[in-house]
């Protein structure tokens, strides 16, 4: 409307429109109208209360079927299998890394292994064996020297007594715990 009137001309018209009374049908208007409508040949629908009185009490039970037993495959892997898989992956990874390094640097693989790891491994093993034999021989020498003294004899005797007593005590404990179980 503002296309046809200026702002000053439209202001009193808008004020007059706002003062007009508001007309709208009530919410029950449509039901009241339809209550007077009669259709020829239509069947009367029973009310809900009447329908409950005439409908049968029994109803077919809902069929609940048990789920079909499908054989399940156990996908849980054992710990040794996981360890083996991890070892395999680690071995493949190390192998691929070594091959890549050898290819990149153009080095003979056997020379690389023997030079880098072979010497250190043999040194480690030899030192381990030397240390073990030294410890064993020193222990044997100390025991032999101690056996000649009274204190040494007492210590060795205590060890033997402890071993015998522990064996007897464990045997008694096994019997007692078996009976208690």
């Amino acid at each position, binding site marked *: 409307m503002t296309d046809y009137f200026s702002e000053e001309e439209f202001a009193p018209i808008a004020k007059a429109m706002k003062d007009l009374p508001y007309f709208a049908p009530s919410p029950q208007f449509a039901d009241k109208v339809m209550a007077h409508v009669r259709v020829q040949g239509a069947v009367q629908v029973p009310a809900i209360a009447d329908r409950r009185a005439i409908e049968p009490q029994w109803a077919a039970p809902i069929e609940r079927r048990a789920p079909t037993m499908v054989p399940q495959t156990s996908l849980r892997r054992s710990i040794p299998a996981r360890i083996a898989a991890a070892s395999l992956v680690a071995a493949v990874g190390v192998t691929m890394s070594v091959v890549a390094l050898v290819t990149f640097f153009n080095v003979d693989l056997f020379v690389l292994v023997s030079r880098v790891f072979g010497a250190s491994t043999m040194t*480690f093993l030899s030192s381990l064996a030397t240390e073990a034999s030294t410890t064993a021989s020193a222990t044997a020498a100390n025991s032999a020297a101690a056996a000649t003294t009274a204190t040494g004899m007492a*210590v060795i005797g205590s060890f033997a007594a*402890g071993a015998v007593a522990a064996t007897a005590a464990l045997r008694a404990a096994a019997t007692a*715990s078996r009976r208690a179980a």
Partner: protein
Amino acid sequence: MFGIVIGWLIIVGLVGFALMAFGADKLQIVIRTMQSGIGKSLGSGLLGQLAIVPGAVAVCALLAATLIGVLLIPLGLVVFMFVVAGIAMFGFVAVATMTGAALSAGSKRDDTAHGAMLRSFVTGTAVFMGMWLVVAAFYRIPLLGPMLESFASAVTFIAASTGFGAVLLSWWRGEFKLPETSA
């Protein structure tokens, strides 16, 4: 000396609790093996200890058969030693539990089997560690100290060897793989 004993007490306690939490059935199997014959378990343990060094050599030989295995020989030896130490600790926990079960046989204060096992383990560990605490207390006395230490060493050696052998024997018989039939 006291610090070493307390340290070992903590280690044995932690390993024992872990075993009871995650492998109580395995622990029961080892205890049953010992109950069926201490002599067999002790003999197996002594034989197993004699086989430790050849086993380490065998690990080295098997690893040296492959190119990648050569690189893994130090690691393989460390793993082998850890396995041996773990078996020995497992066996010692089993011996301590069996000893505690024998000492607390008259006690019926536990409602569950796990509770009874925990009581037995604590009792047995207290006995063995208490013995070493006595050794630590008399450690500086000239003759008595070494004698007590030697006695406790022998008892611990026999206990650890018996447990070590019981674990090996149970594993050799395949009892760890069998399903548990009794509750």
